[in-house]
């Protein structure tokens, strides 16, 4: 209906300054929403990326989802068996070669085996309990983010063979050891062996920097007296989002507990959902306020244009026409505000992307970080959509009033 549109635009144009204020109101709302959504989304993406980066995407351990049934439970059809002495299971992932071969056949990504055992590092009279992790250096480098966190040496230093160990820098500090120092590692089974420190890493997570030591898989197997055993298979997938499916399939295939990173961090991810809800609430509130600006101007226009409404009705315009007219005015303001808001939001994001933080903490090399910003067309569409809806509502209420206006009242009032 081009005539109605022409009328609507004329009304809006007739109120230059107020129109501008309403449009700027919407534009600010849309712009800030976009910038905020971009920041929040960027923060979330960044957080998840770090999470995904540092963790294996799927972690298969030598555990089961539910306790194993004891042979007695299968042998007797009893309701309850008391005083059962459980059968000792052989720990670790049985037949690792076959398990790995099976996984390799279909898993879209890389995998690494390891044997994790507890032990004590002893040096110059100091004992520190650590987790001793036996790895295959080449595979580990493809799966673990640790490879990037080395201060001195690297996983490759382990490849050469021999009794070498890589530890966190905090651990070395506590022991008073340094690169090249030979420390004694005592395992929980009582095996004791001398290892030379060939690498120091710093992840920033104290628990790891202080409590982990990496040795060759074979050395770990010797220390824990479990030849050929492994108790963990970690997968790094090409697509982290496929982790739950891969975990399900791996678990069904191997019988061991396979945990996707999403499952391992369920509470964190839930917190992100709540954060998103909060964000959209705030964004919605901003746009609602902008909507009031539109409501205000359309309301004013309908009051001022009461005479025009009467004239148009006497000329043969219907109530529907009048409703459409003012609804259209609201939507036009919303649309103009959205367009301006897109530009403003884009500019705001661009400026935010220039902000740099220089973080420096103890023991941390100076890091330069930019604000994490996510660019998504959806932010723009959602903000504009919401602005249009609130503009529509803001225009509709006065529009309904205008449509109901009795022309006779106005004409009488004027004469």
């Amino acid at each position, binding site marked *: 209906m*081009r*005539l109605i549109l022409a009328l609507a635009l*004329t*009304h809006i*144009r*007739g109120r230059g300054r107020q129109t501008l204020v309403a449009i700027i109101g919407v534009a600010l709302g849309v712009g800030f929403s976009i910038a905020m959504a971009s920041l929040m989304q960027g923060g979330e993406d960044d957080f998840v990326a770090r999470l995904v980066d540092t963790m294996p995407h799927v972690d298969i351990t030598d555990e089961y989802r539910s306790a194993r049934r004891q042979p007695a439970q299968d042998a007797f059809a009893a309701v309850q068996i008391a005083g059962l002495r459980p059968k000792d299971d052989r720990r670790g992932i049985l037949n690792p070669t076959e398990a790995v071969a099976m996984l390799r056949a279909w898993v879209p990504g890389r995998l690494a085996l390891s044997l994790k055992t507890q032990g004590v590092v002893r040096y110059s009279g100091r004992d520190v309990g650590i987790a001793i992790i036996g790895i295959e250096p080449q595979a580990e480098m493809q799966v673990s983010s640790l490879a990037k966190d080395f201060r001195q040496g690297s996983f490759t230093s382990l490849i050469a063979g021999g009794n070498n160990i890589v530890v966190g820098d905090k651990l070395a500090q506590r022991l008073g050891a340094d690169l090249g120092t030979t420390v004694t590692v005592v395992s929980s089974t009582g095996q004791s062996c001398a290892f030379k420190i060939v690498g120091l890493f710093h992840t920033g997570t104290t628990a790891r920097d202080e409590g982990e030591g990496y040795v060759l898989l074979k050395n770990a197997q010797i220390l824990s007296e479990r030849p050929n055993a492994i108790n963990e298979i970690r997968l790094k997938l090409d697509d982290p989002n496929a982790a739950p499916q891969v975990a399900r399939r791996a678990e069904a295939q191997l019988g061991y507990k396979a945990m996707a990173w999403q499952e391992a961090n369920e509470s964190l991810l839930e917190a992100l959902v709540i954060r998103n809800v909060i964000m959209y609430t705030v964004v919605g509130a901003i746009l609602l306020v902008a909507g009031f600006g539109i409501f205000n101007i359309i309301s004013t226009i309908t009051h001022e244009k009461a*005479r*025009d409404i*009467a*004239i*148009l*009705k*006497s*000329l*043969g*315009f*219907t*109530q*529907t*026409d009048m409703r459409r007219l003012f609804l259209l005015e609201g939507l036009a303001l919303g649309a103009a505000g959205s367009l301006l808001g897109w530009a403003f939001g884009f500019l705001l994001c661009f400026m935010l992307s220039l902000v740099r933080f220089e973080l420096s903490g103890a023991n941390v090399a100076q890091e330069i970080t930019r604000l994490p910003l996510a660019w998504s067309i959806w932010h723009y569409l959602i903000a504009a959509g919401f602005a249009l809806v609130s503009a529509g509502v803001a225009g509709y209420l006065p529009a309904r009033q205008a449509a109901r206006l*009795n*022309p*006779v009242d106005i*004409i*009488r009032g*004027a*004469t």
Partner: protein
Amino acid sequence: MSALIETKALTRVLPAAVPVTLVQDVSLAIGAGEFVAITGPSGSGKSSLLYLLGLLDAPSGGSLMIEGRDTAGFSDRERASIRLATLGFVFQFHFLLPEFTVRENVEIPMRRLGRLSAAAMRERSTELLSALGLADHLDKRPDQLSGGQRQRVAVARSLANDPPLILADEPTGSLDSRNSEQVFAILDALVRERGKTVIAVTHDTGMAAKASRRIHLVDGRLAES
């Protein structure tokens, strides 16, 4: 022939704590080609009757037939479409849309009806305005015109969709005598030359005297006819 507009016991009561009767039991029939003047003292319900006839207001009782169709129970859309194509209004004040040019004001009803092409609308608005001596003012805004000129634009607008019936509410009420005569002459010419029907509410006794028929209202009732 059947009347163009016909009422039977048309009544309009304003609902209030003490109901106000504006128009009571008005029955009349007006045929094509008549120039009817509705006269009466202030508050006698002249304008109210005109608004009822023009479907701007809904009667509380009685019936109203326009071109043989009973308007009772018409939807807003049907009433609007009659106002658009069958009726033309001229009010005491010109009631032009101030943001639009003279030509645009005249074209608005045509555009709403949508029967003519843009070029045909342009031609028709030029023709109508020129016939009323406004050929030089087509692209001016209403506030650049004199009172008499504006009222002539309003007449041109009422003729936009070539309706058979023109309803005028004190069309000369806000004009000086020279302009009044001019507007009256235009309305009179519409009846004589183009066979339109004009129903005009007026205070102007001179104008009423020249009408082909007078309806006198007192307290909302027909006094003589």
